[in-house]
C-alpha cells in the first residue's frame, strides 16, 4: 500500500510542474536532484533528494536516506544507575533507511521557486536494524553484590518515523548547481514491539547533525520521541 | 591634484558625456549647432588649436542655460538660444563656457564635491550647509568665467552686450514674447462663444496679477532696507562690503537658483568695462539673417520641447504666441493642438497638476491669463468645457491646415474623450486614413477603427 502511495506521489511530482502556467521554475527547469553532504560525513550514509517545483512558490520533495551509525550509550545505559531491567549499553550499530516526503513553501515574492528562502515540512518513515549489547542484572552497579550479565541483541526492521519542520535557503550558481542549506526541528520515534521495548528505549534518535547532541543535551529516554535541531547542507543539480 | 582624483574625474566625465550624447537631447548636424560653431571659430580665430579641441552642440533642454562638460564639449541649451536678442549675447555665453574649459572648472567642482561628500560622511556639517558651500564655490567659478569670457568676446562684439546677457539671465523666468495675447482669437467660436466669460476672467486675472506684482515689489524693497542695515553692521565690525570672493556677505537668498548672484556678476563686469571703449563693432559678426533664422528655429523647438517634456501649459502659451506672430504657421498650430489634447487627457485622468504649472512658472501677465482661462475651463462641467473648446480649436486649425496629420489625429483623439464623441471620432479617423493612408498615425487610426467594431 505504501509503495503504491509512493508511486502515485512520484507520478504527481513528475506531472504537476507543467500544469500551472505561472510556475516558471528556474529558467524553465522544475526538477532538482540533490544529495546531503552531512550524511557521508557524519553518518557513513547517503541521502538523495528529488525536488519538484509544482506551483510558483511550492515544491514537493522526496528524499531517500541511508545511514550506518554507531549509537554510543554509556556503560550505565542512559545514565540510570539502577539496572533493574534489561537495558542497552555500549556501542550499538544502527543501520537505517528512510523515505521522507514533504513540501517547501518559498517565501520570496519576487522570485519563484526554487530560489530563495523557504519553509519546509517533511514526514519520514523507514526501517532500522539495531545490534548491540545489553546488560541485565540486579542491584546497583557500584555495589559489590550486584551481578551483571551481558548479551548481544539485535532487532531488525524496526519501524522508525520522523518529521522535520524548519527553514532554509537555496541558491543556484552557474545556472545548474544548487546549494541548499536548511535548519530544522526534528522529532523521531521508534515503533517497537514489547519484546524490544526496553532494549531499544534509548535508541530513538534524531537524524542528521543534531545541535542538541552537539551541545551536550540528550534527547529521549524510554521509548519516547527524540528531538533535535538538525543542519543540512545539500548540493544538487537542476535537471529537466 | 592627485592622479587618482584626475582618473576618477575622467571616468565620471566619460560616463556623463556618453549618457548625454546618447540621450537624444543633442542636436547633430543641425543648423543651430553649425551656426554656434561659426561663432566659436570667429572668437578663436587666433587660436586654432583651442578651436579644434572644442566640440559645441545645441541641446534640446528647454532651459536658459549652457554648460562646459570639462573635456572640450560645450552644450548650449535651446532655451537660451531662443532667449538671446543678438549674436553678441550668444558669443558672450560661448566665451563664458570656453573660459570654464580653460580654467578646468569642472574638475575643480568635482574635487570640491568629493570633499563635501567626505565631510558629509564624517558629519562635520549638515547637508544643506555643505550644499551651500558647493554653490558658493560654483559662484567663484562663474565670476571668473564671466571676466575671462568677457575679455575674449569684447574685442569682437559690443562689450555692453555681456551685461545685457546677464540681465537677460536674471529675467530668464520671463520669456521673450510680447505680454499681450488675446486668447479669444484662438478659442472663441460661434459654436461656443466665450466673450463674456473671457472678459470677466481677464479683468480678474489682471487685477490679481497686479496685486501679486505689488506684493513682490513690497518684499523686494523690504529686503533692500534689511541688506542696507546689514551692510552698515558689517562695516562697523570691519568686514568687507560685498565680499563676493568669499560669499560671506549674507546675500544668499538666490543661492539655489540656476543663475544666482546676477547682481554681483553685473557689478564685476561693469568694473571691467570702465576701461574699455565701445569701438562701434557690430552685434553680428557672422550674419544677422542667420541669427534671426536660428533664433526662430530655437523658439519653435523650445515650444515643442516643452510639450515633449510634459510642460503643456507653457508649451501651449509659447505656441499660441508663435501662432499670434505667424498665423499661417502650421507647426505652431500643431504644438498648440497637441498641448491642448494632453491637457484635456490629463484633466480627465485627474493628473493635470503634474503638467499644468502654477502661475509663477512664467512671470508674465499673459501667461497668468492663459492659466486662468484653462483653469476655468477645466473646472467647468467636470472638464467637458475644456474638451469642447480644445476640440473646436483643433477643428478650426485642421480645416485651416488640411495637410497636417497631427491636427487631424488630435482632433479625432480629443473628440473621443467626450462620452458622446465615439462615433464622431471614428469618422475623423476614417477621414484621416483616406487623406493619409501611409501617415505616421495611420496604424493608430486603423486600430481605433478595428477596436470599435
Amino acid at each position, binding site marked *: 500500500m505504501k509503495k503504491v502511495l509512493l508511486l502515485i506521489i512520484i507520478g504527481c511530482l513528475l506531472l504537476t510542474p507543467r500544469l500551472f502556467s505561472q510556475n516558471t521554475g528556474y529558467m524553465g527547469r522544475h526538477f532538482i536532484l540533490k544529495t546531503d553532504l552531512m550524511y557521508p560525513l557524519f553518518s557513513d550514509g547517503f541521502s538523495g533528494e528529488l525536488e519538484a517545483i509544482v506551483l510558483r512558490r511550492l515544491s514537493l520533495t522526496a528524499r531517500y536516506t541511508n545511514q550506518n551509525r554507531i549509537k554510543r550509550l554509556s556503560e550505565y545505559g542512559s545514565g540510570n544507575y539502577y539496572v533493574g531491567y534489561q537495558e542497552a549499553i555500549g556501542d550499538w550499530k544502527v543501520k537505517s533507511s528512510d523515505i521522507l516526503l514533504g513540501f517547501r513553501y518559498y517565501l520570496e515574492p*519576487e522570485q519563484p521557486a526554487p530560489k530563495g528562502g523557504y519553509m519546509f515540512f517533511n514526514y519520514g518513515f523507514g526501517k532500522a536494524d539495531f545490534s548491540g549489547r545489553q546488560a541485565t542484572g540486579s542491584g546497583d552497579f557500584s555495589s559489590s553484590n550486584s551481578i551483571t550479565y551481558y548479551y548481544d541483541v539485535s532487532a531488525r526492521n524496526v519501524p522508525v518515523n520522523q518529521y522535520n519542520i524548519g527553514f532554509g535557503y537555496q541558491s543556484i550558481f552557474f545556472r545548474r548547481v544548487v546549494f541548499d542549506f536548511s535548519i530544522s526541528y526534528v522529532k523521531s520515534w521508534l515503533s517497537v514491539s514489547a519484546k524490544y521495548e526496553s532494549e531499544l528505549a534509548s535508541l530513538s534518535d534524531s537524524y542528521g547533525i543534531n545541535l542538541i547532541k552537539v551541545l551536550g543535551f540528550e534527547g529521549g529516554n524510554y521509548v519516547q520521541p527524540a528531538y533535535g535541531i538538525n543542519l543540512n547542507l545539500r548540493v544538487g543539480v537542476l535537471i529537466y | 591634484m592627485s592622479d587618482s582624483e584626475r582618473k576618477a574625474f575622467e571616468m565620471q566625465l566619460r560616463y556623463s558625456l556618453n549618457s548625454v550624447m546618447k540621450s537624444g537631447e543633442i542636436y547633430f548636424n543641425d543648423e543651430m549647432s553649425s551656426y554656434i560653431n561659426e561663432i566659436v571659430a570667429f572668437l578663436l580665430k587666433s587660436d586654432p588649436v583651442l578651436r579644434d579641441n572644442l566640440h559645441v552642440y545645441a541641446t534640446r533642454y528647454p532651459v536658459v542655460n549652457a554648460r562646459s562638460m570639462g573635456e572640450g564639449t560645450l552644450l548650449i541649451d535651446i532655451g537660451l538660444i531662443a532667449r538671446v536678442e543678438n549674436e553678441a549675447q550668444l558669443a558672450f555665453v560661448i566665451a563664458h563656457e570656453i573660459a570654464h574649459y580653460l580654467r578646468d572648472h569642472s574638475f575643480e567642482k568635482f574635487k570640491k564635491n568629493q570633499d563635501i561628500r567626505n565631510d558629509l560622511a564624517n558629519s562635520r556639517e549638515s547637508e544643506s550647509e555643505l550644499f551651500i558651500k558647493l554653490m558658493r564655490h560654483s559662484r567663484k567659478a562663474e565670476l571668473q568665467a564671466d571676466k575671462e569670457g568677457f575679455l575674449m568676446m569684447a574685442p569682437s562684439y559690443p562689450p555692453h552686450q555681456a551685461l545685457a546677457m546677464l540681465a537677460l539671465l536674471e529675467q530668464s523666468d520671463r520669456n521673450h514674447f510680447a505680454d499681450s495675447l488675446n486668447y479669444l482669437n484662438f478659442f472663441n467660436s460661434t459654436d461656443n462663444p466665450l466673450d463674456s466669460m473671457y472678459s470677466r476672467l481677464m479683468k480678474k486675472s489682471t487685477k490679481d496679477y497686479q496685486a501679486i506684482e505689488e506684493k513682490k515689489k513690497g518684499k523686494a524693497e523690504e529686503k533692500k532696507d534689511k541688506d542696507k542695515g546689514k551692510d552698515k553692521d558689517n562695516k562697523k565690525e570691519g568686514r568687507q562690503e560685498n565680499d563676493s570672493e568669499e560669499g560671506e556677505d549674507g546675500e544668499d537668498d538666490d543661492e539655489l537658483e540656476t543663475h544666482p548672484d546676477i547682481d554681483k556678476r553685473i557689478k564685476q563686469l561693469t568694473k571691467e568695462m570702465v576701461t574699455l571703449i565701445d569701438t562701434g563693432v557690430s552685434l553680428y559678426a557672422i550674419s544677422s539673417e542667420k541669427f534671426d533664422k536660428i533664433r526662430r528655429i530655437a523658439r519653435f523647438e523650445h515650444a515643442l520641447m516643452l510639450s515633449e517634456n510634459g510642460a503643456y501649459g507653457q508649451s501651449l502659451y509659447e505656441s499660441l504666441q508663435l501662432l499670434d506672430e505667424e498665423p499661417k504657421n502650421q507647426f505652431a498650430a500643431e504644438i498648440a493642438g497637441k498641448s491642448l489634447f494632453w491637457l484635456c487627457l490629463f484633466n480627465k485622468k485627474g493628473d493635470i497638476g503634474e503638467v499644468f504649472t502654477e502661475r509663477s512658472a512664467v512671470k508674465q501677465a499673459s501667461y497668468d491669463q492663459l492659466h486662468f482661462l484653462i483653469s476655468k475651463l477645466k473646472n467647468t462641467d467636470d472638464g467637458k468645457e475644456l474638451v469642447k473648446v480644445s476640440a473646436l480649436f483643433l477643428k478650426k486649425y485642421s480645416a485651416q491646415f488640411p495637410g497636417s496629420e497631427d491636427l487631424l489625429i488630435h482632433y479625432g483623439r480629443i473628440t473621443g474623450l467626450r462620452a458622446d464623441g465615439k462615433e464622431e471620432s471614428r469618422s475623423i479617423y476614417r477621414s484621416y486614413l483616406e487623406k493619409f493612408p501611409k501617415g505616421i498615425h495611420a496604424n493608430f487610426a486603423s486600430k481605433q477603427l478595428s477596436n470599435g467594431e
Partner: protein
Amino acid sequence: MVNSFLKICALPILFAFGACGGGLMLLEKNQQLDNHKESIKKIVSLSPEFSKYKIGREELTISHSEKFGKRLSHNIKKIGKKTGLEIVIFDDHELSAGDVDYFNDIIRLKNAIRSAISLQSVVESKQKGKFFKRRFSTIAKPKVVVWEEAPVISSEFSYMAEKYGTPYFSVQGVIALKYPNSLAISWLIPPLGLLSEMQNRHATYYYNIVVNVETTEVIYREFRIMYNNARQSNIDPIIYDSFKMLRK
C-alpha cells in the same frame, strides 16, 4: 529542557529567518493583456540599461555598468528565445554614424514611455469576485493589478509597428545597489555574518514596461526588488519569469 530547547532554537531560527530576503514584486497589466486578448510574440527592447551603484564610497562603478549592460542585452535576447518571445534589441553600445533610427525612433519613444509612466496615474479595474487575486500573492500566482485606464503615449509612434514588425516596445533595465556593510557585528556569529554578506548588502531592482504603439497604451508594467547580488544567475531567472508572466 524546554528552556534549553528554546535557547538553542532561537539562534538558528533567527539565522534561518535572515535567509528570507523580503523582496517585492509589482505586476500590472491592462485588461486586454489580462484577458488574453492580446498576444505578444515579438518585442523591441529599447536600449536596456544596467546601472551599478555603490553607496557610501564612490558614486558609480562605471566600468561594470558598461560590461554588464552588454551582457544584459545579450541575455535578454537569449532568454526571450527560450520563452518563445522574439526580442529585438536596440542599444547604444555600438552606434555608428548610420544609426539614425536610434535617435529618431528608439530614444524618442523611450523618453515618451518614461514620461507617460512618471506623469500619468493608473486606474485599477474593480473586477468583481477577484478581491483575493488582485491583492495577494498566492502560492500559485503572483499578485496582478489590472488597469482600467492605462498610461498612454502619443500616436505619432504608431508607424513604428510596421517599421519594426511589431507594435510592442519595451523599456527594461536593472539597477544594482551595494550598501556599505553596517552589520559588521554579525561576523561575531559566522553564520549570521555569512548570511548578511550574501543578503543585506545588495539590492537589485528590475523593471519592465511594455507599450503597444498602435493602441498607444502601456500594457504591462513590472517592478521587482531582490535583496541579492546582481549576478547573472540571479537576474536571468527574473527576466525569464518576467517574460513568462508577460505571455500568460
